[in-house]
């Protein structure tokens, strides 16, 4: 992608697709977060719906299962008055041998205006964005190990909500970072927004060493990793992506890297604890922490809807 125009932006630098946080200017991120703030209040109204996407069709294309993410996109699109079509591709055309681009061509013939794409292959949403009609917008809802930009943005919204200013923070991302597209998106977003200290905490097998090149401090020691942190982002141990002996056992991982009240006490007294969900209680996070006063895991879910509304309304208002 070197020296090529960012495919997410049009000639005026406006967002037309959301594929990755990497390469997006700080102003674009702030515009999304500001807009999300406006939408957050829509949820408190008598009529929880605004007509910005009225008459538009949003297709949720989930080549990989994720009920929760799909549901939040569906709620966001419906609150914007779009018609939402959910396609469980994993169980249909792909299994009959249809290629990705043929699937997209067929759905485009059904007059789709937006595709929300979840795919196990990194880069699939880029391929779709490059081949769909000019009026169609694409949102990456998670591709392989590459990116999960709306999760990254909702994490940024959450941090900004509780901490106000990004430029004084220490943020620790803990756990299975190597498999985590959330971690990658968070790191790009935190860097763009000016967070001075980002720490990646976990065992050597789950923390890629090339993170150092992105300006991230890699810590294999949990105490060192979370000491003095303002924000702790716990990641789910992704058993379904774990192949080979990357870990001795979940129990051992939990003992060393699971967030317990004792370990949390090392962070700043007003630290917040985040998690993209679904949480594995007793594995990466102790119930006392997940349900405790530092936890902002449920507000993250609420903010996620507003952030997805912001992304969808911004991209659909900008022409290619």
């Amino acid at each position, binding site marked *: 992608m070197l020296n090529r125009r960012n495919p997410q932006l049009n000639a005026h630098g*406006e967002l037309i697709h959301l594929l990755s946080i990497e390469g997006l200017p700080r102003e674009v991120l702030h515009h999304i977060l*500001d807009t999300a*703030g*406006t939408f957050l*209040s829509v949820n408190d*109204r008598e*009529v929880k719906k605004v*007509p*910005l996407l009225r008459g538009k069709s949003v297709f949720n294309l989930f080549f990989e299962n994720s009920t929760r993410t799909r549901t939040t996109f569906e709620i966001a699109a419906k609150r914007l008055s779009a018609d939402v079509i959910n396609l469980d591709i994993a169980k249909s055309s792909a299994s009959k041998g249809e290629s990705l681009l043929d699937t997209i061509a067929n759905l485009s013939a059904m007059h789709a205006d937006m595709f929300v794409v979840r795919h196990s292959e990194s880069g699939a949403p880029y391929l779709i964005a490059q081949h769909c009609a000019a009026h169609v917008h694409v949102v990456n809802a998670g591709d392989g190990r590459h990116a999960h930009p709306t999760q990254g943005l909702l994490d940024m919204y959450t941090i900004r909500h509780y901490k106000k200013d990004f430029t004084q923070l220490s943020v620790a991302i803990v756990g299975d970072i190597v498999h985590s597209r959330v971690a990658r998106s968070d790191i790009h977003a935190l860097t763009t927004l000016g967070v001075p200290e980002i720490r990646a905490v976990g065992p050597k097998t789950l923390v890629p060493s090339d993170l150092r090149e992105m300006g991230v401090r890699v810590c294999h020691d949990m105490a060192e990793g979370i000491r003095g942190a303002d924000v702790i982002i716990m990641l789910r141990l992704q058993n379904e992506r774990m192949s080979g002996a990357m870990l001795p056992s979940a129990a051992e991982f939990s003992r060393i890297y699971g967030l317990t009240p004792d370990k949390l006490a090392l962070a700043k007294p007003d630290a917040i604890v985040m998690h993209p969900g679904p949480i594995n209680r007793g594995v990466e996070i102790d119930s006392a922490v997940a349900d405790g006063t530092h936890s902002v895991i449920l507000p993250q879910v609420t903010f996620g809807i507003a952030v997805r509304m912001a992304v969808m309304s911004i991209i659909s*208002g900008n022409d290619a």
Partner: protein
Amino acid sequence: MSTLTLDAEALYTELRSGVRGLWRADMAMLGIWSGGAWLAERLHADLGLPGKPGVISSALHRDDFSARGMGHGTDATKIPFSVDGTHLLLVDDVLFTGRTIRAVLNELFDFGRPASVTLAVLVDRGGRELPIQAAFAAAKVTLPSDQRLSLTRVTEGPDEGRFTFSLRGGQ
């Protein structure tokens, strides 16, 4: 250069007397973001009304969304009172095509069903494209349709808080 001179402060004084005439005890005030919100804030203080006026934004109901997209403003509707069954006085700086008022009315009804809505504006510049009228306008002017008239507020210095007009575009 336009030779039009509009004294925003003098017009504000007119608007204040107009609003005093329209006001009734069971009313609540709503200013349209941003110019109307500034006016409502000052009217509320000058008329010695209790509580705070509401702010209402047209952003989520605009009819030019597909052409203009989401704006970069931080305008968000904040209504600190119940809309249901309330008589409302809606305040804006400039009334032109009426499209902003249409969008604002739609926004308003997402919060409930007001008993009535009355509109008061600083300037009515004609050029209506919808059947919408103000109950009070401090001035009526005619401007070329490609000119953009809006209220601005001095943000610092000895004149802080004073109103002026900004006129852009046109010949």
